[in-house]
């Protein structure tokens, strides 16, 4: 079992390496190079040469990749092109903000959606189940900014319970911070909760078609009891995987939400970097997002191996 997990972890690390090469290579396929892309039309051969030297573009690609990657894993992402600031010092507080928001949303979303998913599975086909189904389908098919603006319109503008912009400072007290970030957290919750609810429901229901569940019913147990004590322990493995996968999804969802609420997180930082075409910033953010995504996916795989004995002995 340890060997399977180790293989999976090594595979995750290899993927991360391949992804880092991909992120780096993306800058190489550019016709011309970063220097000419940044300087644009007004570049003279002289300024191009100086700028290339400044960026270190006069050296071969594999040397620059090795330098960039070893720097990146030590937390040295270089300097931003636009304001010459150290990227790490700009990213660290933003990364903390993003993790805070994602964690806040996860704390609401995970218990809520798992509980509702189980409830929907217990009441399969009844009103509660169909209601959960319709609401979750609706939240999946509308764009995330629509939900965000609706929430702002009702809770920030009409009812004035929460601010419409989530401005946070480093030395803000926690209670204030929780209040200010409530709307973005709820929006994110709705986004991932819909997926989680549907997946939880279907994994509980797929267990429900097993013979031992039928046996439990034939013994005369109530539906609630069958679901909670017979089906749920066996559905735990897929549910844990679902949670980890959706936390990965949360990372992507956070980008748009941060822009809507003008929340100073890493997603907004990346979008800013893209519109200013600040490549080192975009690469650094991309690597962090991809790293988090791959880590969570690997954790999901490892957890499902740990929880489900059948996966420990692959044929």
């Amino acid at each position, binding site marked *: 079992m340890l060997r399977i997990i180790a293989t999976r972890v090594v595979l995750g690390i290899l993927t991360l390496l391949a992804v880092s090469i991909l992120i780096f290579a993306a800058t190489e396929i550019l016709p011309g190079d970063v220097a000419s892309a940044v300087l644009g039309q007004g570049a003279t051969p002289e300024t191009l040469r100086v700028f290339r030297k400044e960026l270190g573009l006069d050296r071969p690609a594999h040397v620059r990749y090795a330098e960039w990657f070893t720097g990146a894993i030590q937390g040295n992402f270089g300097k931003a092109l636009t304001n010459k600031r150290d990227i790490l010092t700009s990213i660290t507080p933003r990364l903390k903000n993003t993790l805070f928001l994602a964690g806040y949303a996860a704390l609401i979303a995970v218990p809520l959606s798992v509980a509702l998913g189980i409830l929907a599975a217990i009441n399969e086909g009844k009103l509660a189940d169909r209601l959960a189904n319709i609401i979750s389908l609706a939240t999946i098919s509308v764009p995330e*900014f629509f939900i965000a603006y609706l929430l*702002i319109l009702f809770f920030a503008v009409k009812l004035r319970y929460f601010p419409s912009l989530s401005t946070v400072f480093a030395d803000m007290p926690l209670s204030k911070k929780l209040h200010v970030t409530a709307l973005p957290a709820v929006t994110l919750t709705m986004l991932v909760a819909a997926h989680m609810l549907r997946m939880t429901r279907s994994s509980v229901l797929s267990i429900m078609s097993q013979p031992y569940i039928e046996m439990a019913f034939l013994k005369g147990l109530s539906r609630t009891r069958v679901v909670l004590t017979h089906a749920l322990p066996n559905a735990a493995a897929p549910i844990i995987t679902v949670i980890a996968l959706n936390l990965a999804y949360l990372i992507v969802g956070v980008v748009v939400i941060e822009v809507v609420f003008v929340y100073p997180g890493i997603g907004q930082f990346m979008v800013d970097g893209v519109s200013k075409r600040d490549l080192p910033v975009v690469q650094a953010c991309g690597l962090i997002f991809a790293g988090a995504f791959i880590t969570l996916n690997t954790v999901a795989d490892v957890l499902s191996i740990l929880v489900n004995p059948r996966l420990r002995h692959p044929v």
Partner: protein
Amino acid sequence: MRLFGHKPTTLAWVGLAIIGFFSLIAVLAPLLAPHEEGAVVSDTWAPASGSFLLGTDNIGRDMLTRLMYGARMTIGVALTCTILSFIIGTTLGLLAAVGGSLLDQVLSRSVDIMLSIPLLVFALMILSMFGSSIPTLIITIAILDSTRVFRLARSVALNLVVLDYVEAARLRGEGLWWLMRREILPNALPPMISEFGLRFCFNFLFVAGLSFLGLGIQPPYADWGGMVRENGRAIAFGVSAPLWPAIAISIVTIGVNLVVDWILSINARPSGASAEM
């Protein structure tokens, strides 16, 4: 009335009506629109009135006109992306299934690596390199999305490759291209049709999302995601301007989803009832 030899359900009809309605608006936008696409006709965020049925936007353009032209742009771009992505994804997917294990390994592993980065993050990186123009946007989304199509096409085709009639065609000496186009593709199409609808929804939301971030379709073109962005600040004053394009996006997505659900239910029917407890 029957479609594909089946009678659509009520919900499917609703979906079809929505798709038909918005396609018509998209095609006929210049004829239907009450004002010029970019014309400034009133004050910023004027309320709805007789001449501006949905009010005006952040620089005083007619919201209804912008919505109609936006339908053209947003639906058009998303549809082009999806068609392109299906051409690329299906070709490569069938090639991977037919063309032997080495080709399959190379293609599948490359796709695995691309799928291990969130699509949005990947798209942001590419757009920061090339800048955002409509052709770049379409090609970027089409290539990223084709990885999903590739996976489906490959797995469907792998089940078909082992069938006798493919073997027979191989033995009579047909080439790779013939096998893909004449033997496998026609039989792989049914599951791909509902996938087309799902991928369209995804690309549609993706284009709208990128434009909302200011990185997709650029002004002066009207597009729904960009319109939400331009009018976003209005919400703080209780003006519903950004909600109109957002509602339009939601309605189209829900409409396509309703039709896809119906097509899926047709395809699922012959395989027997699901385990019902």
